[in-house]
């Protein structure tokens, strides 16, 4: 067999794996790979303006298409800049393969120019990582890396390739299906476990489905199975931040998001349920609130592909290690085979309707200033028929988007949940737009977060991507300010967004269209103008400066201790609560 250089092997393996786009940034230690990409011409390379953005763009691409995102960066600062996005993908279980250049093997450990211990640095923020020192092993490693990144609980995998390995030659042959020696993620659940879950579900008086991002990772069919399961059982459905879209927001069976900024009805139903069926969700601290008060009277079934998620924070009565889609398929089949009648949940729903009547997402109306919630709703009104893909940054605007923008389908909501990475939204929107060229992609942003990867405006311009950025500009790092109001008697230490740029002129400088909306009367027209423009648009929407995001379960509080309105804010907290994140 003719030998190829490591760089050519990499490109060929990526082609064999169906990779059509790479997000990257060149540098000394990856020049052979860039040359191989250039010569091959088979893979589209998207040049970002900062390596962190490459990783978020890959996440946005992955989350919106279901395919793994691929990143290519150089050694040293290229790799370290990528670490935030790699960690983000780990916490949100996003399939991603990151190829990093490394100094030549002979120089490793010598503090060479642009050398960093990439496998050491990324060991605990990846699902797995490799340093490949032999081009003969490279092809196999690349195929294995994609297998690991995309199967089981998906996550980021780093492949560190020294420059001499990119140049040295070896034979490459496309391998067959991967049978890993040690890595064999579970797919199917034990039948007896599924039967036990069905028994519990059929006997429950107050059941609830607590659903999460694992259902999205399982593929669109898993969402449809959830609809079927909900239809058969009549049980209410709530979702984590990461799971929004797995169940239609417009369904009367959907209670909205749960957790810290979840709805009153979702949190009360979790608290009062006698059975929780958790599917592809991980009982995150933002979901559970105070652990010893979390859903005290329920039995808990937890379906998760990652065994370590079961019993991590909350004691589970029945843990099922399986892919969410496979497990739900089995549940639907067995439920139907047994011809279970739909359980009588009328009394349960009567109580839920009582909580719903609180209308916890209502917000004060104002005719002079734009309430941020109103802006999100206006955006939803104007765009939902087009089934847009929404990305966000992190903070108040993210929670308002989660609360007020209804999602009907999976893969339409891209947000940094676990790591909470400001600067995620713009590059994620760029990645989503590349994966979905005909979709309407909007980054709902805050004026502080958007500045963390603002340089990516140029990337959208270069590739003519018509992404929209809708900034809810309240001139504060709003969530920080809100916590300072709640916890530190409104001592706003460093949370004011001083010296803001003129976002309209900034957008124009990058070749975007810029629009400013300052008054409620301009809201609908401004949004219409944004949608009418076929290129990228940045909207600077000036909103109420001191609006808070409610409902809110303060840190360390139980689901039943929600703050619903601003007049319930005391302004101080005890040290136990202050010490929580």
């Amino acid at each position, binding site marked *: 067999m003719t030998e190829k250089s490591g760089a050519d092997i990499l490109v060929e393996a990526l082609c064999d794996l169906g990779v059509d786009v790479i997000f990257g940034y060149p540098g000394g230690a990856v020049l052979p790979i860039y040359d191989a990409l250039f010569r091959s011409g088979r893979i589209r390379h998207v040049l970002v303006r900062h390596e962190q953005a490459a990783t978020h763009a890959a996440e946005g691409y992955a989350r919106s298409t279901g395919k793994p995102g691929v990143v290519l960066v150089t050694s040293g600062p290229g790799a370290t800049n990528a670490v935030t996005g790699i960690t983000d993908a780990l916490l949100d279980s996003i399939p991603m393969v990151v190829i990093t250049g490394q100094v030549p093997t002979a120089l490793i450990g010598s503090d060479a120019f642009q050398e960093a211990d990439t*496998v050491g640095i990324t*060991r*605990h923020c990846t*699902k797995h990582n490799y340093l490949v020192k032999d081009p003969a092993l490279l092809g196999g490693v690349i195929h294995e890396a994609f297998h690991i990144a995309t199967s089981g609980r998906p996550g980021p995998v780093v492949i560190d390739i020294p420059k001499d390995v990119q140049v040295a030659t070896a034979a490459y042959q496309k391998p067959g299906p991967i049978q*890993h020696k*040690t890595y064999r993620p579970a797919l199917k659940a034990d039948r007896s476990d599924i039967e036990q879950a069905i028994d519990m579900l059929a006997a429950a008086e107050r059941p609830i489905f607590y659903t999460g991002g694992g259902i999205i990772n399982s593929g669109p069919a898993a969402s449809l199975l959830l609809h079927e399961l909900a239809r058969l059982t009549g049980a209410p459905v709530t979702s984590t931040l990461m799971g929004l879209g797995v169940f239609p927001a417009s369904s009367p069976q959907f209670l909205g998001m749960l957790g810290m900024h979840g709805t009153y009805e979702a949190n009360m139903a979790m608290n009062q349920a006698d059975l929780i069926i958790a599917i592809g969700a991980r009982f995150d601290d933002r979901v559970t609130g105070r652990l010893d008060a979390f859903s005290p009277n329920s039995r808990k079934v937890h379906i998760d592909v*990652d*065994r370590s998620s079961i*019993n*991590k924070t909350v004691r589970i009565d029945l843990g099922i290690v399986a892919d969410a889609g496979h497990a739900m398929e089995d549940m639907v089949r067995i439920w139907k085979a047994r011809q279970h009648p739909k359980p009588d949940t009328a009394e349960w729903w009567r109580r839920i309707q009582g909580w719903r009547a609180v209308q916890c997402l209502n917000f004060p109306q104002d005719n002079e200033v734009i309430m941020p919630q109103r802006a999100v709703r206006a955006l939803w009104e104007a765009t939902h028929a087009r089934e847009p893909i929404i990305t966000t940054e992190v903070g108040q605007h993210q929670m308002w988007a989660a609360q007020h923008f209804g999602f009907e389908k999976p893969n339409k909501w891209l947000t940094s949940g676990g790591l909470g990475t400001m600067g995620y939204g713009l590059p994620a929107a760029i990645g989503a737009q590349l994966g979905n060229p005909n979709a309407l992609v909007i980054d709902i942003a805050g004026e502080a977060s958007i500045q963390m990867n603002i340089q990516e405006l140029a990337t959208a311009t270069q590739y003519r991507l018509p992404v929209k950025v809708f900034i809810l500009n309240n001139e504060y790092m709003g969530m920080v300010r809100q916590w300072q109001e709640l916890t530190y008697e409104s001592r706003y230490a460093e949370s004011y967004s001083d010296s803001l740029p003129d976002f309209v002129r900034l957008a124009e400088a990058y070749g975007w269209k810029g629009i400013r909306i300052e008054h409620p009367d301009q809201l609908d027209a401004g949004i219409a103008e944004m949608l009418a423009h076929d290129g990228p648009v940045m909207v600077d929407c000036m909103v109420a400066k001191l609006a808070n995001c409610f409902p809110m379960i303060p840190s360390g509080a139980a689901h039943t201790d929600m703050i619903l309105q601003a007049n319930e804010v005391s302004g101080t907290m005890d040290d136990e609560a202050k010490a929580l994140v």
Partner: protein
Amino acid sequence: MHIKSETAERHTLAVIVDNEPGILARIAGLFTARGYNIESLTVSEITVDKAVSRITIVTSASKPMLEQIVAQLDRLVPVHKVRDLTAEGAHVERELALVKVRGVGDHRIEALRLADVYRARVVDATTSSFVFEVTGGTEKIDKFVELMSEVGLIEVARTGIVAIARGKDAA
């Protein structure tokens, strides 16, 4: 406010892993990253082709945390299997120590006498010192070292614990 801590149990884990570069860092790093405790850690290749290693870890943790430790170890890609030997029943734990002792005058005789009681072998001797090799459970070794410190301990090297389940079955 003061930091609270949970009551911990001491457990011995056997972790069978692919012998690949960085595996020890992966395991040890997982313990530090997640705030688990390592009391003892030993590692060695156990197959002829040197492809597989066995890591014995002694940790102290609460029951739920132990369950997490096993699950977290088990999901690392190069890990074949993880066994909580303490939870699974009877097992044998051994440690080896090399103990260097000053041996002059009356202390020389006493050191040899105590070594005999503990079935420690003399593996090196000079006119003024001994090196003893002693094996056994951690408590026995602790006790031996404690006694030697009274007769003139110079230094100690210990392997850490290796453990294996009793009975015919493999881990």
